[in-house]
């Protein structure tokens, strides 16, 4: 059955499209992109007044399955992704057990394919059990379809092991995603170290716990020629180091989350665990540096770090509550509020960072509206305003510092392989 998206404003940075264009889809693939398409018998989606963009690609999603299906399942995570405009998500390996061998990668792929809601790519672990001691079988993991490897949730602290991992990963041309955190400087902290942590009497995490590890990994990438992708950047110093490293053509890429772009440590208020994330929300100068880094290309893409948790875990004291918030369903609105409304980015620039660049880093064919590509499409009402109501989330994770906030730009619908998911 043919599907025609008619009258929308297409924003497809990979093809330099930014204007009113129709898109024709047949058997899940884009077959025609033209100013005006007539297709008899095609089901038509009236997209007038809407933006039509490639479906977003999230490099950093925690689906929690296998092991913590009470927090999220591949199905609930995939439904949340679609509602947020994401048609591809890269599942992080800090599940139980960790995704550190082919069997577990296959399990995630099989379940995602059975559901057919979004494309789920897997990020395998760098070390067995994410314990930081022994490398996983990289060849087996990449052969099983992993797009990258990461011990996310914690860093590869051992410098020798990280050096060897970067060297060995060169065989596969894929990145190692580093959760940049020097564990001894992290020191069981629970929020950014600064005036707010001092006021609340909470253990602080200095920005240097991140930038020290970023510095080490840049040095190791330079030494080995390997590719390090820095996850969820949070500090101004890290941004500057990556900027300098890129000037030296070091193979380093980086991502930032919508919440680090939008919020500072002030969001914690009076011990609000909905703002407890790792790395922590930092100071305004860090936030500004992240925005500037995203603008000038130092930071390649936006990734959600969607990290759902149960109510009983998050409704605890700040020390005990787990790090992480639900991010897939608010990402676009938060980005539009933080970046589009103040004219820091244009829509094509934002879509590049939400779809094109993450697909490039993951090495997958997505993030474009190429003729012949799978029809992974987001349709956005740029003039809508909506209120974040976590109880209506598709994700099982209902914790977000944006609860109750009015945000601009709503995802009206998302198509995965041409199939429409209602919002």
């Amino acid at each position, binding site marked *: 059955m043919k599907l025609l998206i008619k009258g929308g404003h297409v924003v497809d940075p990979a093809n330099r499209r930014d204007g009113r264009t129709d898109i024709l889809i047949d058997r899940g693939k884009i077959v025609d992109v033209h100013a005006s398409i007539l297709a008899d018998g095609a089901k038509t989606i009236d997209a007038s007044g809407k933006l039509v963009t490639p479906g977003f690609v999230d490099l950093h999603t925690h689906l929690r399955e296998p092991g913590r299906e009470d927090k999220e399942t591949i199905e609930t995570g995939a439904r949340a992704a679609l509602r947020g405009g994401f048609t591809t998500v890269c599942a992080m390996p800090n599940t139980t057990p960790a995704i550190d061998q082919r069997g577990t990668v296959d399990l995630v792929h099989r379940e995602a394919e059975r559901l057919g809601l979004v494309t789920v790519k897997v990020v395998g672990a760098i070390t067995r059990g994410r314990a930081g001691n022994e490398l996983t079988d990289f060849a087996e993991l990449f052969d099983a379809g992993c797009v990258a490897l990461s011990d996310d949730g914690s860093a590869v602290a051992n410098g020798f092991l990280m050096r060897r991992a970067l060297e060995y990963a060169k065989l596969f041309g894929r990145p190692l995603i580093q959760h940049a955190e020097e564990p001894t400087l992290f020191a069981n902290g629970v929020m950014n170290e600064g005036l707010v942590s001092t*006021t609340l*009497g*909470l253990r*602080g995490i200095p920005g240097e716990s991140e930038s020290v590890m970023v510095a080490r990994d840049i040095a190791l990438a330079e030494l080995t020629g390997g590719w390090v992708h820095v996850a969820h950047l949070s500090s101004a110093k890290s941004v500057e180091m990556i900027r300098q490293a890129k000037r030296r053509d070091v193979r380093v890429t980086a991502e930032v989350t919508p919440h680090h772009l939008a919020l500072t440590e002030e969001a914690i208020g009076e*011990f609000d665990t909905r703002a407890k994330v790792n790395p922590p929300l930092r100071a305004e100068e860090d936030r500004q540096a992240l925005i500037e880094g995203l603008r000038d290309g130092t930071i390649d893409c936006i990734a959600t770090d969607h990290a759902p948790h149960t109510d009983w875990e998050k*409704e605890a004291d700040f020390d005990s509550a787990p790090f992480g918030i639900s991010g897939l369903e608010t990402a676009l609105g938060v980005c539009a509020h933080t970046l589009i409304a103040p004219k820091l980015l244009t829509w094509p620039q934002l879509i590049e960072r939400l779809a094109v660049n993450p697909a490039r880093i993951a090495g997958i064919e997505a993030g474009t509206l190429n003729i012949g590509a799978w029809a992974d499409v987001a349709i956005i009402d740029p003039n809508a305003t909506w209120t974040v109501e976590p109880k209506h989330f598709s994700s099982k994770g209902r914790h977000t510092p944006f609860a109750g906030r009015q945000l601009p730009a709503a995802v009206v619908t998302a198509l995965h392989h041409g199939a429409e998911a209602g919002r």
Partner: protein
Amino acid sequence: MATEHAEQTAQWTKKDLLGLRHLTPEEITLVLHTAASFRDISLRPIKKVPALRGKTIVNLFFEPSTRTRTSFELAAKRLSADIVNIAAAGSSLSKGETVLDTVRNLEAMKVDVLVVRHAAAGVPHLIAQHAASSVINAGDGAHEHPTQALLDLFTMHEKKGRVTGLQVSIIGDIAHSRVARSNIWGLTKLGARVTLCGPPTLIPPHVEQLGQGGVRVTHQLEEAIRGADVLMLLRIQHERQEAQLVPSLREFRLHYGITRERLASAKPDVLIMHPGPVNRGVELDSDVADGPYSVILDQVTNGLAVRMAVLYLVSGASRGDHEAAD
């Protein structure tokens, strides 16, 4: 008690007492004034008034404490309230029950006031958000210990006749001290000047910006002693040495311990205060702790009156009236 702020017109309208950061100077003064009216009860042969008869108070101590728990217990009993002590050693989460599960169970038994002590900052706030009962923070992590600061203010006022204009030096482990934080808020709100003193490892970042009008930081003990009306010492714990925050307790004493010799440069009427328990020979030598400047035991006595006042005020707020104390 003399009034520095218009406590006569202040009314207690809060359900809870979670810290001094969000109290107005008038509210702080109201507590102190109320405490003054309760102080004499403990001096009577029959140390009991019926002010809180029929009220049920729970001492919910997730972290061990003898003196604060006892002080609250006696305060409740002297107001004729029923009090239950619950010592939940360690985290209740380790037993599979969350803090909120524990609180919901207690509330199902229709209690009126929860006095909460916890090793994690913010637990009383969490409980207060979910509980209909009044919550009194009896110390949460390194955050606040409001009744300790109130009894410190009360003692300073008792001994000096005023808090406004006093120069108070808080010496020791500021970074991990809930007592320091509550005192910074309370003292600066009442117009005292605060100096914090300790090695850089025990001074938290941006602490100068806390309090109204800010506080001064020095790493030199002599500067903290000179001109101070009050020297408030904080306990240095052995864990700080293990965490490499001080090389040794001996070295700490050499640089920051209050000895009789060091007091020679102090004001002749300086007050020595300590929230207890004193680490004798570390932050405070025995002859100073037991010496003529020390008001450490007065602090304990006043703690009872202050906790009676706090229990009385939050109970009154929860039932919506303000009866006389006796």
